């Protein structure tokens, strides 16, 4: 899921300084799980808007805010949203842009999108995937160096690895040591003597992906 974090309140208020009546849109999927765009957070913003001299027009929480058609239909049915000057969106960047695509109203982003996270347990997320467009996990023991090495190295460890730890954060294990240890447990560590080719960034240019049907032949 997409992990989000609250923007500083001051920054959000500055972005809405030209608007008085604000309608809030949360997100029932990722942002709710991140505890940044669920029921509680929407209510906190209703109070904060009032405290800062604004009018809160109300809020709704779509099941998933990153869905343009869903947002169009919900906005059509909401008189409160229609009466507002601007929409405060408590969702990831994809959610904010879905709202932006569904309406002409000004949109204010309430959150920072952090990463595609793996949930360790409720409320605790691990940065495990960068959506990089060319997955290397099959050759790295199922551990992503593109995301989990701060340098995104495909041929690690680098010289900054000290006693198994990372130069960027000494409390963090070097992900290339993790990959090495996992391979070693299967006696496959010698594959690390092979150089991984530089990554192609050609795949990340696509602006649009349409669903492709999987068939036995067509893969």
């Amino acid at each position, binding site marked *: 899921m997409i992990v989000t974090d609250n923007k500083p309140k001051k920054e959000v208020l500055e972005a809405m300084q030209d608007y008085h009546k604000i309608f809030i849109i949360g997100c029932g999927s990722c942002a709710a799980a991140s505890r940044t765009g669920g029921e509680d957070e929407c209510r906190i913003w209703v109070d904060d808007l009032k405290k800062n001299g604004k009018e809160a027009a109300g809020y709704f929480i779509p099941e998933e805010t990153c869905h343009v058609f869903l947002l169009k239909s919900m906005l059509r049915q909401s008189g409160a949203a229609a009466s507002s000057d601007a929409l405060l969106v408590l969702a990831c960047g994809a959610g904010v842009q879905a709202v932006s695509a569904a309406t002409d109203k000004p949109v204010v982003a309430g959150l920072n999108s952090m990463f595609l996270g793996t949930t360790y347990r409720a409320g605790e997320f691990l940065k495990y995937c960068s959506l990089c467009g060319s997955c290397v996990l099959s050759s790295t023991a199922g551990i992503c160096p593109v995301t989990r090495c*701060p*340098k*995104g*190295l*495909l*041929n*690690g*460890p*680098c*010289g*900054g*690895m*000290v*006693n*198994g730890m990372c*130069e*960027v954060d000494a409390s963090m294990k070097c992900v*290339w*040591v993790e990959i*090495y*240890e996992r391979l*070693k447990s299967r006696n496959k*560590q*010698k594959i*690390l*003597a*092979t*150089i991984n*080719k*530089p*990554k192609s960034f050609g795949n990340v240019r696509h602006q649009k992906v349409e669903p492709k049907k999987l068939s036995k032949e067509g893969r």
Partner: protein
Amino acid sequence: MSKLSDALKNKEFVITAELSPRKGTIVSNFIKTVNVLKDKVHAINITDNQRAVMRMSSLVASYLVLREGVEPVYQLTCRDRNRLALQSDLIGAAALGIRNVLALTGDHPSAGDAPEAKPVFDLDAATLLQTITKLNAGFDLNGHPLKGATDLFPGAALTPQTEPLEPVLLAMERKIQAGAKFFQTQPVFDIDAFASFMSKTQQFRIPVMPGILLLHSAEQALNLNAHVPGIKIPDSLIKRLETAADPHREGIEIAGELIGKLRQVSQGVHIMTVGQEKDISTVLERI
């Protein structure tokens, strides 16, 4: 042609020193230091925004060294440039007559004076070495022909004193496959540990030049131990610096002793200082 390459081939005891470009345009002291080291070392390594602290370009500073009649080892990291910029800088270096290149991954920007900078790392040390090998063969990384091949002598870096060691040795193997012709290491203080490391790399038959870091006080040594990844200065040396009447002289003494011992197990040394490059010539007088 590279004098460094010839000296290594001829099994001479090779000495390189490390010099950082200045942060600013005034280069008179830099040039002075180059001339102090001239004829005392085989080549001078010119660092590339070392520890991610922004300074003058290592390519330009390497050329300033070359102009003084001293051979530079042009250090190039993958931190600040993508594959286009790396290749164009390498071709430019070759056209200027620079021959030795040390291909490095580079410290993360978080260590330096612009921690908010975007880390590039489009290539890494191994794929940068592969790139140099291709440029030397007359092709770019994607196989397009060059009008004039480079004639670069590529080296790489090693961290000999770390655990686990096997992934470090595998990384060394990859760098050799990619074309590295010599290695320079992080500072070495424990001769026995380094000798044991060298015995594990014998199969590769490649020159390894251990790093020598000049110490000038116990405080500095403790500071390095605490803050620089991969540096491990033993307590016995810290004690010597602590009790010495002149710690600065003692540091030079220690470096001289280390070089004397490393002669037995390596084909050269790479001498580093923290801003006291002129002391390198004093050290060299003692060996």
